[in-house]
């Protein structure tokens, strides 16, 4: 289906809009795959994809077309994801501190426990992996996914995450340890069979 975004009043914006629509068409599935691995469920993944493309659309004038669009989009997405997780954690902390007059928390706390979509993941190993991924520190999870799922080199990941190669190296090392520890603790049988 051709991807068409609402028309702008400005005629000079038309070529940019067309170019953007083409990029969305080309990258939306891949973007969803990354978003799902980052968030662990389809609802949050869709929200993250929409938020990321909206931001990319808003700042499209800053995109350098000589660079891959996915790298730029992934930077937006990973920043948004880490920001969202931090906000959610702050909200949860605030709710514990500020109970209402009846002793019940004043805010509704979003449930940040991952709930892998059974329809999305076809096997228990992938379920276990996804649960372990979502339990990781967000920066570590991002680095490991970009390296192992997206196949990026460390300097590419450093560019996406706006950090140094040394930091990427540390995040991947510590991230894989977190991932393994979670699998060994929560799914020893599945993980044990998988790495034999």
């Amino acid at each position, binding site marked *: 289906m051709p991807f068409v975004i609402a*028309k*702008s*009043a400005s005629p000079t914006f038309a070529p940019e809009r067309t170019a953007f629509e083409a990029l969305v068409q080309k990258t939306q599935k891949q973007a969803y795959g990354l978003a799902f691995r980052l968030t662990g469920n389809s609802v949050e993944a*869709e929200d993250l994809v*929409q938020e990321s493309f*909206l931001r990319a659309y808003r700042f499209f004038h800053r995109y350098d077309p000589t660079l891959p669009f996915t790298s730029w989009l992934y930077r937006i997405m990973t920043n948004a994801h880490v920001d969202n997780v931090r906000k959610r954690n702050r909200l949860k902390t605030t709710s514990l501190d500020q109970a209402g007059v009846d002793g019940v928390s004043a805010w509704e706390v979003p449930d940040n426990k991952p709930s892998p*979509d059974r*329809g999305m993941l076809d096997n228990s190993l992938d379920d276990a992996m996804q649960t372990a991924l979502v339990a990781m520190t967000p920066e570590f999870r991002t680095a490991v996914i970009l390296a192992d799922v997206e196949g990026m080199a*460390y300097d590419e990941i450093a560019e996406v995450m706006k950090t140094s190669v040394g930091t990427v190296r540390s995040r991947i*090392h510590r991230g894989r340890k977190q991932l393994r520890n979670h699998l060994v603790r929560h799914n020893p049988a599945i993980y044990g069979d998988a790495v034999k």
Partner: protein
Amino acid sequence: MNCRSVQQSLSAYIDQELSGREMLLIRSHVLECEQCSAEEEEIRRLKGLLTNAPMVEPPDGFEQRLKESLDGGRPLNRGRSYGLPFLGVMALASGVLTLLLLHAAGPRPEPQASNPPTPPAVKADVNFGVRADQASVMSHDPLSGGSVVFATSYERR
């Protein structure tokens, strides 16, 4: 190299992200050390589990919903509650939006004696004199049926 420093570099070794000299030193150690060799093998397999993980396909209707959100037909953040801080921000946003909509609507027309014309359907255009790169189409306004455009400064967090 001792086992501790080798094991700290194993991920980068497996990813071939070390200098040639470091790669050779670690390879030499791993060939002779059973513990580090086992650790290397396990990290390789863990990496393999992720690399070979099945591609996640978007759910039905994903493309349409994405298109609608970029067109401004549906708000983001389905099914979430944010509580009082978010409501406060939304109250402020509503005030800004009301001003923008009133400005776009212009002065009220004089009442007419017979059969006032039906107002034309408002197109889903990004307008209101706001530059497209400073506007975000958030939703449809339930009153006018037009796009709800949120114009603000987007300072990078």
